[in-house]
Every structure is written in C-alpha cells, then in structure tokens.
C-alpha cells in the first residue's frame, strides 16, 4: 500500500510548487493541493472503518497495521533502519485530523496573510508532510526526522508572519522543544544501547524494552524508570504539561491564526501521541508504577491551566491556557490504563484538536474584523457578525464540554475510565473529581469573555467597518463545528477504532 | 639499531622548538616556519614507528603530511601576502579585527 507515501509525496511536492508560485495564486493553489491529502485521508478513514475492523495496535500487532509499507533503508552499527509506515486506530484519526485541519487552516489564512504568501503556504504544506510522517512512521529514525521536521516550518511561520514579539516566541518555541527532544533522545537511546536491538522499528523497540531485564541502575533508579522520566519530560514539553508549558502562550499569541490552529490542533497532539506510543506502550510497567505522580501532574495541569486562563485578557491567551488544561485530561486518561481512560484520552486528542482549532479560528475571524483580541476593547459583536458569533458561542460551549459535542464525549470517557482506575488505587476517585473541577472554571472564563466581547451594546474604537466576515472565513468554522457535533453525537466513528488499538496496550498493563 | 626513544627525543625537541617559535614570535613567516617544524616532528615520529613496527603505514602518512604541509604553505603564504597588503606589516598581533 502506497497511500501514506502518496500523502507524503503530494504534500511535499505541493509545498515546493506552492513555494515557487506567484503570491496571487498561492493561497488558492495551496488549498487545492492540501484538499487532495484531505480527501485521500477521508477515503482511507472510510476504508479503515469498513475494511480493517478490529485492527490492533501498530506497535504490538505490527501484522495488523493498515496501509503499511516497509522498505529497508540504512544499516549501521548493527541497527537496521527502514522506511516503515502504517496506521492503526490511534494514528488514523489523528492523520485525518491533520489533513483536514491543514486544509481548513489554509483557507482561513486567505484573509489575514497578505505578505510572502507563497512561502507561507509552502511552509504550511511542508509542515503537513512532517505531521503526516509523525503520525504514520513506525520506524524510530524516520519518525524522529519528521518529529524534528515539524519544528522548522513552525519556527519560520511564527518568526516571519507573527506578531510584535515573534522572534522571542519563535526562538523560545524552537529551543524549548528542541532541548526536550534532546532529553527524550538521550532517554530513549540509553535503552536502545542497553538492549540487544537490531532494528529501530517501533514494534521491535516495544518488544525489546518490555522484555528487557538486568538493566543497570543509574542515579539510584532502574534505567527503565530513568528513561521513562527523561522521555516523559521530552514529550511533556510538547503536550505541554505544567510546569513546562510557558512556551505555548507566547507562541500562540505571536503566531498568526492559521498557525495557532495547527499548533493547538495538531502539534500538541504529537506530544500525547508520542507519550502513548513510547512511554505507555513501550514501558507500561513503569507507567503503572508512576501512575499516581503522573496523574497528579495531569490534574495540576488541568486546574492550573484553567486558572491561568481566567486571568487573561487576550482571547488567544485564554484559549492557549485552556489548551494546557484540556491536555491535562489526556495525561489523566493515559495513566488510568483502562479502556475508557486511554481510549478517552486518545479521543480527546481528536476532540480537542477540532475544538481548539475551531476556537482559534473563530478568534482569528473576529480579529480579522476588529483588529484586536483584547477582551476589554470590544463589546456587542453579536450585533455585527451574527454567524461568526453564533459559531464562536457554539465552539465555546463545545470547549466547556457540552453534551453531544466531541469534547464532552472525550472528557466523560476519561473521567469514567479514571474514576475506578486500578493503577491509581484509592486516589482515583479523588484525582478524577479534582480534574473535573476544570469544567467549572472553563465555563467561568469562556462565559465571562463571551459576555464582555460578544454581548452588550456594540462598542469598538476603530476606523474599520465591522461587519460579517466573508464566506471563506466562516465556512471552515462551520465545517469544524459540524465535525465536532458529528463526533459528539456519534463518538464511535472514531472511538471504536481507537478502542481496538488501545486494548492491546491495556492488556500489557494486566488489563487493569 | 638506534632505539626508538632517541627518535622520539629528537622529534620532541623539534616539536618544542616549533612550539616555542609560535608562542614567542610575532612575524607571520616565522610562524609558518615553526608550524613546519612541528609537522616535521610528527613526521619523524611516523617514520620512527614505521621502522619500529616494520610496516609502511607510517611512511605513507608522512608522505601525506608533506603534501599537506606544502598545501598549507601555499595557503599560508597567500594569507601572509594579504596580511601585508592590508596592514603593511607581517606582525600577527596587529590584525585583531576577527574578535568578539
């Protein structure tokens, strides 16, 4: 099956073509180019749903992988590296999320991006290539190339098209995440070199790490534990988890809206995806030993992020901090090691990807019109742009976990899975209840922000005429909102395949 | 047969002379010559160990080093000429523009 290769090739070639095209056509061309992988991935999703029923985990049952392809690539030092890609129930929805969100983000960029357009869209497509690679690669070397490859376009997208403090934000983002990658790399390779691995394929690594024995003790702890902690740090920065989150608000505030959409919608999920693939699939026993402290980290992230969001005035900062909060739920769900906990966590990646993308996009559309994002600067927008505001309100309620929208399904499943998680013992109900308090705070700051900006008498000190946004700004919002509702009404569209791929991981942990 | 230590002593002496030249002199040409001395000290070691081990690897490397030294002199003289053209002197402590 060459589907994944086709996705990679189309986006990469498309990036080159768009980069060379004149600015006038770049936006439309990029949208057209990115529509191809989006449609292709929708087809793959459909094919997965209908043909690959019950496919297992890509790392634990590599034979069951969908759209798999393996070509030997490099041999050195007794390690085989190959071009090895494939999808399972965890990566398939994330891949579809990536391609769809990229297309919508590109369309939403038509209004705000007015300089160096061809480079902008080219970089967006290049980032899409890397993201597709991250979610489909099954060989560590290949995966790492894509993992780091995401940073490069992101750095330029923030640093060139960003706000006033774009350089600071871009460098902070790049250095922070790169240092994290280094630490993660060290942790992982400590294990690679102390086991007798012959291949860097992820399934082989998972096999070797689980059966590893007689590993040395470093700094008073087993090498497995040490590696787990190093890798957790590496991925936690990406998620991000308290206290490694401070790059995120800066990056979001400075990044142009379409880039924020990608950052919140997909890039953060790289962190949790990697946590699931590496820490929780390869080192399940350590994950269970450390379950309680990790769950506390997740719960603190939830409450801390939500409280910080309460203190912000910039709409983008509000959504940025609330992303920290939402991703904390994912950590809580993962450590639960129960079907609904881990499945819900994976589903939350999708749900939050859609909803936070929708939130950022709506904020962007409002910003395009009002040229401000500060809560105190405007009021009564509902009067002027009813459709945008209507979608914004819907998105905000989605973020608050309104039932029959995707966010509720994800959060409820996580809570359900974590509430009686054996890994957390008698702390499980308490920790879960503490995390749930996030749903109250999130309602607090979003309702407050909406009341101040959208309702009341119209007021905005500006020379611009404030009116409804153009169709191509509102259409992506509507599409995302529709997806959020569809997944909320019928979570099984994604959740079934997620569960099928998650269960082998849970079985590793003794079923819990 | 002369023991290998004697060659090493000779080589060390030549090396130290070269090092002394580099550390104390300011003239760029002396610099070049001192570097040549140090390279040749290395060459003496190569040849000595080649003899000691009875194979030709060391001598081959010596040939490489000589070629390298020749190339280095060519580049070095060029640099000295540019130096003189820009600063009207061949004192290496004068041109300090390439600093922090």
């Amino acid at each position, binding site marked *: 099956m060459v589907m994944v290769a086709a996705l990679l090739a189309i986006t990469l070639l498309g990036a080159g073509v768009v980069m060379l095209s004149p600015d006038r056509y770049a936006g439309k061309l990029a949208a057209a180019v990115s529509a191809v992988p989006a449609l292709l991935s929708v087809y793959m999703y459909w094919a997965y749903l209908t043909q690959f029923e019950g496919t297992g985990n890509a790392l634990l049952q590599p034979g069951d992988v969908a759209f798999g392809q393996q070509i030997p690539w490099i041999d050195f030092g007794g390690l085989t590296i190959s071009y090895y890609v494939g999808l399972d129930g965890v990566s398939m929805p994330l891949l579809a999320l990536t391609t769809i969100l990229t297309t919508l983000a590109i369309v939403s960029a038509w209004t705000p991006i007015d300089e160096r357009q061809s480079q902008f869209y080219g970089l967006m497509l290049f980032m899409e290539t890397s993201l597709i690679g991250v979610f489909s690669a099954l060989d560590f070397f290949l995966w790492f190339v894509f993992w780091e490859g995401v940073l490069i376009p992101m750095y330029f997208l923030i640093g060139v098209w960003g706000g006033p403090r774009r350089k600071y934000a871009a460098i*902070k983002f790049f250095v922070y995440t790169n240092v994290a990658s280094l630490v993660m790399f060290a942790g992982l390779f400590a294990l690679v070199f102390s086991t007798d691995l012959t291949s860097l394929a992820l399934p082989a690594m998972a096999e070797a790490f689980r059966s590893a024995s007689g590993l040395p003790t470093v700094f008073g702890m087993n090498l497995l534990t040490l590696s787990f902690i190093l890798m957790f740090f590496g991925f936690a920065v990406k998620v991000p988890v308290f*206290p490694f989150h*401070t*790059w995120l608000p800066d990056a979001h505030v400075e990044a142009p809206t379409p880039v924020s959409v990608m950052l919140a919608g997909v890039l953060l999920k790289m962190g949790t995806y990697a946590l699931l693939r590496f820490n929780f699939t390869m080192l399940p026993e350590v994950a269970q030993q450390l379950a309680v402290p990790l769950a506390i980290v997740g719960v603190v992230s939830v409450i*801390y992020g939500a*409280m*910080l969001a*309460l*203190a912000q005035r910039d709409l983008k900062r509000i959504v940025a901090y609330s992303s920290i909060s939402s991703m904390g739920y994912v950590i809580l769900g993962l450590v639960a090691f*129960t*079907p*609904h906990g881990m*499945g819900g966590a994976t589903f939350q990646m999708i749900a939050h990807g859609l909803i936070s993308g929708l939130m950022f996009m709506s904020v962007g559309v409002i910003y395009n019109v009002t040229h401000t994002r500060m809560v105190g600067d405007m009021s009564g927008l*509902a*009067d002027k742009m009813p459709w945008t505001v209507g979608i914004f309100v819907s998105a905000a309620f989605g973020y608050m976990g*309104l*039932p029959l929208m995707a966010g*509720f*399904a994800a959060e*409820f499943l996580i809570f*359900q*899975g974590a*509430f*009686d998680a054996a890994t957390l013992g*008698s702390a499980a109900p308490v920790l*879960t*209840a503490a995390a*749930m*308090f996030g*749903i*109250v705070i999130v*309602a*607090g700051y979003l*309702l407050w922000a*909406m*009341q101040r900006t*959208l*309702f*009341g*008498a*119209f007021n905005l000190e500006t020379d611009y005429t404030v009116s409804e946004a153009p169709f191509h700004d509102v259409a992506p919002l509507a599409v995302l909102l529709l997806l959020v509702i569809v997944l909320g009404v019928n*979570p*099984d569209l994604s*959740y*079934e395949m997620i*569960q*099928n791929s998650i*269960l082998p991981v*849970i079985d590793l942990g003794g*079923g819990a | 047969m002369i023991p290998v230590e004697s060659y090493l002593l000779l080589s060390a002496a030549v090396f130290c002379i070269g090092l002394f030249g*580099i*550390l104390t002199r300011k003239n760029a040409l002396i*610099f070049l010559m001192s570097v040549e001395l140090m390279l040749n000290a290395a060459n003496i070691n190569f040849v000595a160990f080649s003899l000691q081990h009875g194979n030709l690897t060391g001598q081959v490397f010596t040939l490489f080093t000589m070629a390298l030294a020749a190339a280095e002199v060519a580049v070095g003289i060029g640099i000295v000429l540019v130096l003189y053209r820009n600063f009207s002197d061949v004192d*290496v*402590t004068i041109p*300090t*523009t*390439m*600093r*922090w």
Partner: protein
Amino acid sequence: MAAFTYAPAIVLLPFVSFLVALFLGDRMPKGGALAGIAATGGSLALSIWVALTVAGGGVYNEFVYTWVAGIESVTLRFGLLLDPLSALMLLIVTLISFLVHIFSLGYMNDEDETGLPRYYAGLGLFTASMLGFVVANNLLMAFMFFELVGLCSYLLIGFWFREDGPPSAAKKAFLVTRFGDYFFLIGVVGVVATFGTGLFAPITEGGEVVAQSFPVLAEHAVVDGETAGIAMLDTVGLGPQAWFTVLGLLVLGGVIGKSAQFPLHTWLPDAMEGPTPVSALIHAATMVAAGVYLVARMYGFYAISPTALAVIALVGGFTALFAATMGLVKQEIKQVLAYSTISQYGYMMLALGSGGYIAAVFHLTTHAVFKALLFLGAGSVIIAMHHNENMWDMGGLKDKMPVTYYAFLSGSLALAGILPFAGFWSKDEVLYEALIHGLGSEGGLATSYIVAYAMGLLAVFFTGFYTFRMVFLTFHGEPRTDTARDPHGVRWNVKGPLAVLGVLAATVGFINMKPVAELTGAHIDFLHAWLEGPEEGGWPAALVTDSHHYGELLHDVAGVSAGEPLGSIGTLLASAAVSLALAVAGAGLATTLYRGPDPVEHTDKLGSLKTLFMHNYYQDEYQVWLATGLTYPLARVMDKFDQGVVDGVVNGVSSVSLFSGQRIRRIQSGVVSNYATLLTLGLVLLLAAFGIIGGWF
C-alpha cells in the same frame, strides 16, 4: 404498543422545529413560530397517546441508540423509559411548551421583536432537550440533556443580548448551575463506575431482567448484602450505604443547582431578565423541575439512604421558607414570582426528602400549571404596562384586562394554597407527608423532618401574603401611573393560553384529592393509583419504579415511618386545616393591608429585616465575591507566579546562557598568539589529565 414506536418523535419534533427556525426562520411568516407550534402540538398529541397507552398498563424501557460501544468496558447508550412518571411529565412539558409558543406570538411577534428565529430556535431546542431529559432511561443520558437545557436557558435568558443585564444574568445562570452539575457529573461517573450501569429501571425481555438498574442493584447491596460485584466499595473503603449516600448527595448537587435550591438559588431571580414566556416555560414550569424530577426518577436510590433523605428534606424546607421571605418585599412582579418558584420547589424537595414521593410529583404537576399561568399572566400585564414590571406603577388593571385578572387570580389562589384550587391539594399533601413521617420516624431523621415541616408550614403563611400582595398591587386599587390607566391591549394569543391554564389551575388538583378520598372512601386519588400501579404484576414488577415499592424501601431501609397521633383521618384533616388556616391568614393579612384604592408599602415596618430581604440575605454578594473577589485575584496571583517564577526559570536559563556566552567569548581576542597559547595550554592540561588518570606519575 404503537404509541411507543413513535415516542422518539416526541423529542425529535421540537428538534426539527429548532433546525427549521434557525435556518429558515427568516423566510417564514412569524419567524419560525408556526414550526414550533406545530412541533410542540405534535409532541403534545403523541404524549397524550403515550399517556393513554401507559394508562392501559403499557410501559416501555428500551435502548434506542448506542452512543459509545465499550469494548471490554461499559457501553453507554441512550434509551427511553416511559412509565407513569415520565408520561405525566411529558404531558406537562409538551402542554406548557405548546401554550408558551402560542403566547409568544403575542409577547414577541406582536411586540415586533427582532431575532425571532433565534428565539423560536431556542424554544425548540429547549423543548427537545427537556423532553429528552424526561424520557431518559439512564443517568448519563439524563445528565447530557440536563446540560443541554442549561445551554438553552443560557441562550434564552440572554436573548436581549444588546443590553447589559441579560448576558450577565445568562452567564450567572449557567455558571451557578454548572457548579451544581460538577457534583452531578461526579455522581454520574461514580454511579456508572460503581454499578456498571446508569439505568433508572431494569430492562426486561419476556419477564427476564436483561439489564439491571442501579437503584435495584444498590438496594440488593444494602438490603441483601450483595456487594460482591461492586469493586468501587473497596477502592473508596466505604460500606455500601455510606458510599451510595455519597453518590446520591453528589447527584443532588445538580438537583440543587437546577431546581434553584439553597445555596445555588441565586441564578433564578436574575434569570427573569429573559423574555417572560421563557421564564414561564423554563424558569418556572419545566427546566427548574428537572432537578426534582431527577430525584423522583431515581427515588429508589435515595430511599435507601436516610442521610440523603434528611438532607433533601432540610434543604427543601429551608429553601421554601427562605425564598418566601424574600418574596415578601419585592417590587417587580416577576421577582415575586421567581422567589415564589424557588420556594415552591423547596416544597417538592421537602416532600421527596420526607418520603412523600407522590406528594412531590403532585406538587410538581400543579405547580407547573399554576406557575406557568402566573408567569404568562405577568407577561400579559407586562405587555399591557409597556414592559414596566414594577408593581407600584400598576394598580387597577382588573377592569382593563379581565381575562388576565381572573386567570391570574386562579393561579394566585392555587399558589397560596386556598381550597379548592390546585395548590391546596398538593401543598397540603406535601406538608402532611412531612408531618406524619416526622412524627413516626426516629432519631435524627425525625428531627430533620419536624424542623423541615415547621419551616414549610411557616412558608405557607408567607406565600399567602406575598401572593395576594402581588394580586392587589397589580390589579386592584386605583391606577398609579398613566400606563396603568391606559394599558396596551392583548390579543387572543395571550388570552387563550391564560384561559386554558386558568381553568387547569383551578381543577388540576382534583386528580389527587386525598383528604376527600379518605373521608368519603371513594377512590378518587387518581395520581396515587397512577404512580402505584396495579397491586400484583403489571409494570411495577418490571420497572420497580412504583410508589408502593418506594414506600417499602423508605420504611424498611431508611426507617421512615408514619405516625398518626389523631388517627389517619384525624391527622390528615388537622394537617390540612392548619395549612389552610395559615394560607388564609397570610392572604387575609395581605388583603387588609393592600386592599385600598391607594395602598402603601407596609413591608417597610420590617425595618432592617426588609433591607436583608431586599438584598436577598446578601447571597448574591458573597457568590459574586467568591468569583470576583476570591477566584479572580487568585488567578491573577497564579498568573504572576506563572509569568514570574515558572516562565522566569525558563527565561532565567536562557539569560544565564546568554550572559555566560557574553563573558566566555572574550577569550576570542583576535590575537593569533593568544590562540596558540591557549591551544598549547589545553594540550598540556590534557596530557596532565591523562597522566594523572593513567597513573604515569
């Protein structure tokens, strides 16, 4: 049972009207109102059909949709539970919603409001969500629709979003109820984690139970000690009854928020910022009833926990009294009604807590009718008064708008609890249940019941007073303003619903005239029969949601028993006489004080108490302080901490690198000789280091 096949349409019809009004309302006459009227009318007809089928002994409890199919874990489904309780509630909701849609033609369309499609879409979505909640056969589905009605309430309270008040009130309503729902959500998760199901009633197939319900499982655990399958008990380290009490109280959090019980009642008076038909539908008759309905729906779960029952009774009794006192002094007609609503829901909670399941459902029914009537009546008055709600600007409206007056009077008599209007029968039964169970039970339970009863009884007097203060100020005496002298007329679409409800408010109490039934021996307590079901077999055997079973549980497990010192009929009549006397006394006092042509405000004599009542016991102040005086500053401090310390460390690391880089680069002097020296030094140091490590010295 053909009716049950079409039952999902009861929920779906209003949902379709929501979509139609939202997307096509602009292009439709009346801004989508007709779609709403048609949909709720259809739902009403279907509900009647369902009720008739249920009356014929049919019940329905099936899953209709799998929301999340759990693999090796709990599966979450949507299902319909149609039994006498939900059939009754369906009737109430669809009837009131239908009438409110018609009334809205007069209140919104005739007043040339803008944004009508949004209004009717909101009403449609609300009706659909509320009906979804009513028919829900499990706790999770109930929670989901419970939240959705909260959304609709938010959207409709904030309907006039261009003003400052409504958006703020909408935010408060959602936030305060969300706070309650937080506990509810923990409760839902806890129940599903504990029992593996959230079903309210067992699902049976051919007499065999295929899916057990959580109240029954809880009962088995507590009564028969069947705790083997309940792993949660080991996790939390509690006995079954203690843990179920915790779960029950958690769910109660949502109930207290939604049914506006103390201390989460503060949102309801503010919610009066919404259009009055919305207040009638959502904030009086239906959504606020959701909390009480939920307790009734899972009553089997509460009936095994005396602690939870005592808490419910005390919260209810206290709220009934507490809210009634605030209603005494309010000047806006809708504010009086809002506090009265809180107070009346307190009665229902009191009934539920003190073992009066039927009394609570009865009061829920009558209250839905007469309070919707009062709100719609107030709406009619507000139209007439050009949207001035202050009762001191009214007066003498009786002659100008007789239909409104008589309907309003019917509702007021019902609210005050005057024989033979609906409220008398139901309120009397509530108080009677609290009294006899307070007298018959033992220990703390009895004390709580008696205390709650005393508070409820006192509230009866206040209710009579504020109700008739309102009636006299609004309709009697001389008009006090020009608007009141020449009120705006109302049309059939306002009068029609008022007339229907006015008649119902006078008569709906006849479905359960318990004192008359006891006296005459005639079987005219129809609601008892409705909720109790047949003696043997029938739906109670299948669903275990009958009041008879609840009575047994209350008696055997919770220790709630009846004490009748004056014999059964004597006690019943004495209780009825006391509450009627108090109601009449309250109403009479209001009549004497406010009857004249130019009444003056007598509540000023309350002095500082009046200030306290007017400020709602400073409940709003402390809750606002919790949000803006405590949480927000805390968030600011955390933000400072985040920017200063957490980000400070990050920036500190980079500053250290930058600073040390700045220092170290001084080595790069540009003098070749220095580099050579450094190289040599480095070589020497390296050799020395190798030497020391290698042991050459």
